[in-house]
């Protein structure tokens, strides 16, 4: 690694990105753009250590510093910033969940998304193209009515669209009534959309760094030190780093970290697969999701079709998926978009999602004092990033759950107060 850049002072020196600045840099052949973030040497101790340099961890650090003035913070990342699920997901942003608790949390995130590029002075390319959730059976349509109705009570935008309205939004979709699972309608959330995943991590990293947060990449946490029931710091491959508070935000590895502190979590980790096609000219504007056939599709600004499949059916940390799951997702794409059958898949990969029994996250304190977890987002992680970081920072700073995070504590698994976002069970009569 190159030498640390501790000498660079945070904040005051951060160059803001703007058109005049771009023009000025162009005249200087872009030779003196400032680093987006420092590469500091770790200190011996921090007030708060955040384990995990993905979108959630970096957002947490940013809001800790910005909203709560807690700047004595290190984000410790085993690999590179945003290298986990942040950079592996299909970038869908929406908030039209079923239960009040989740809808409010995701909608809070969606509100932050809308102004995020300006807020952190980094274009995260949030594009509100609208999100369609298709219904293929009568029960799907009942569930859609219920979800959209409940969303409206929470002030969340949503409409129930007919098949014809869906067809108008997505001309290429097969809306034939004779297809195997005909499209009977959809929910439509116009405020939903997509964003550029890497930019979220980088933007938060740059903004957090500017506020004084140390970003420690290529540093692995190998142990969590607990004394008298309270956390005292983390062991890393570079040595011990003391901390009053340790916050773990490591999707795909939460269980591993919990075990370091002698805890277990209600989580199973599974690969979730995604793929992209070769780039095409613009042909699909909204995001189209079909939970019934396990297919999620949008078109990136570059022209790739970005497609999500279902989760694998068995636990795994392999960041690769099971081929039959991929076959099914691609078959679903060909069913919904028969013209895409001749388009080609460029790349496919897997991310590791941490799945809770109720398909909702765990945000909050753990039985170890000063140790906090933010995990179990399943497939909802990316879309929640700003909201997750915000409420988690608030929870850590005030040492009590943020009101939006309160329903998502670990205690719900003893009380039975599961939030249950599986949606309706399979229709059965």
């Amino acid at each position, binding site marked *: 690694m190159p030498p640390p850049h501790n000498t660079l002072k945070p904040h005051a020196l951060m160059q803001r990105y703007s058109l005049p600045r771009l023009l000025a840099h162009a005249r200087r052949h872009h030779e003196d753009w400032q680093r987006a973030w420092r590469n500091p040497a770790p200190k011996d101790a921090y007030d708060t250590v955040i384990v995990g340099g993905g979108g959630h961890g970096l957002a947490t650090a940013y809001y800790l510093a910005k909203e709560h003035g807690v700047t004595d913070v290190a984000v410790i990342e085993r690999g590179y910033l945003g290298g986990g699920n942040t950079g592996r997901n299909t970038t869908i942003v929406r908030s039209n969940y079923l239960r009040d608790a989740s809808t409010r949390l995701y909608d809070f995130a969606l509100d932050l998304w809308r102004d995020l590029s300006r807020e952190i002075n980094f274009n995260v390319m949030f594009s509100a193209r609208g999100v369609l959730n298709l219904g293929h059976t009568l029960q799907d349509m009942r569930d859609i009515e219920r979800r959209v109705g409940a969303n409206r009570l929470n002030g969340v935008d949503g409409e129930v669209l007919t098949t014809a309205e869906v067809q108008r939004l997505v001309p290429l979709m097969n809306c034939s009534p004779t297809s195997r699972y005909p499209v009977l309608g959809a929910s439509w959330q116009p405020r939903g959309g997509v964003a550029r995943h890497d930019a979220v991590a980088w933007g938060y990293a740059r903004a957090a760094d500017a506020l004084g947060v140390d970003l420690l990449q290529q540093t692995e946490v190998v142990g969590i030190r607990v004394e008298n029931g309270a956390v005292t710091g983390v062991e890393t491959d570079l040595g011990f780093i003391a901390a009053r508070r340790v916050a773990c935000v490591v999707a795909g*590895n939460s*269980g591993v970290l919990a075990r370091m502190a002698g805890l277990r*979590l*209600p989580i199973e980790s599974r690969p979730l697969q995604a793929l992209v096609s070769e780039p095409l000219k613009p042909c699909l504007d909204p995001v189209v999701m079909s939970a019934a056939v396990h297919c999620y599709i949008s078109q990136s600004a570059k022209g790739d079709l970005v497609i999500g499949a279902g989760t694998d059916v068995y*636990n795994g940390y392999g960041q690769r998926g099971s081929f039959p799951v991929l076959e099914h997702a691609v078959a679903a794409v060909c069913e919904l978009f028969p013209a895409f059958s001749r388009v080609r898949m460029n790349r496919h990969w897997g991310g590791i999602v941490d799945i809770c029994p109720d398909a909702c996250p765990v945000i909050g304190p753990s039985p170890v004092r000063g140790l906090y977890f933010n995990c179990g987002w399943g497939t909802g992680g990316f879309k929640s990033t700003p909201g997750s970081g915000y409420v988690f920072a608030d929870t850590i700073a005030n040492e009590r759950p943020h009101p939006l995070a309160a329903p998502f504590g670990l205690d719900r698994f003893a009380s039975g107060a599961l939030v249950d976002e599986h949606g309706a069970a399979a229709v059965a009569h």
Partner: protein
Amino acid sequence: MLRIRCPYCEEARSEEEFAYAGEAHIRRPEDPEALSDREWGEYLHFRTNARGPHREMWVHAAGCRRYFNVLRDTVSYEILDVYPIGKAPSDDSTGNGA
């Protein structure tokens, strides 16, 4: 895609013939009513979720329809052991929390 040897059929077949059935060796409590809510919640929801060797159950769904135990590395996906239900793990030092 995994290739799994069914201990009853004694054939190695593709994963598509099998279904996953979760972590192995979780005994249902003898007397659930005697457990605290927290203990019952642990049984219901908390899992080892091992990164590395993991003891898990599979069922040969499109074959003999019988359940069996597999010791599988969840990182390399290598299958280290396969043994019938009811048989104790061959070596307690590996898998699920080791």
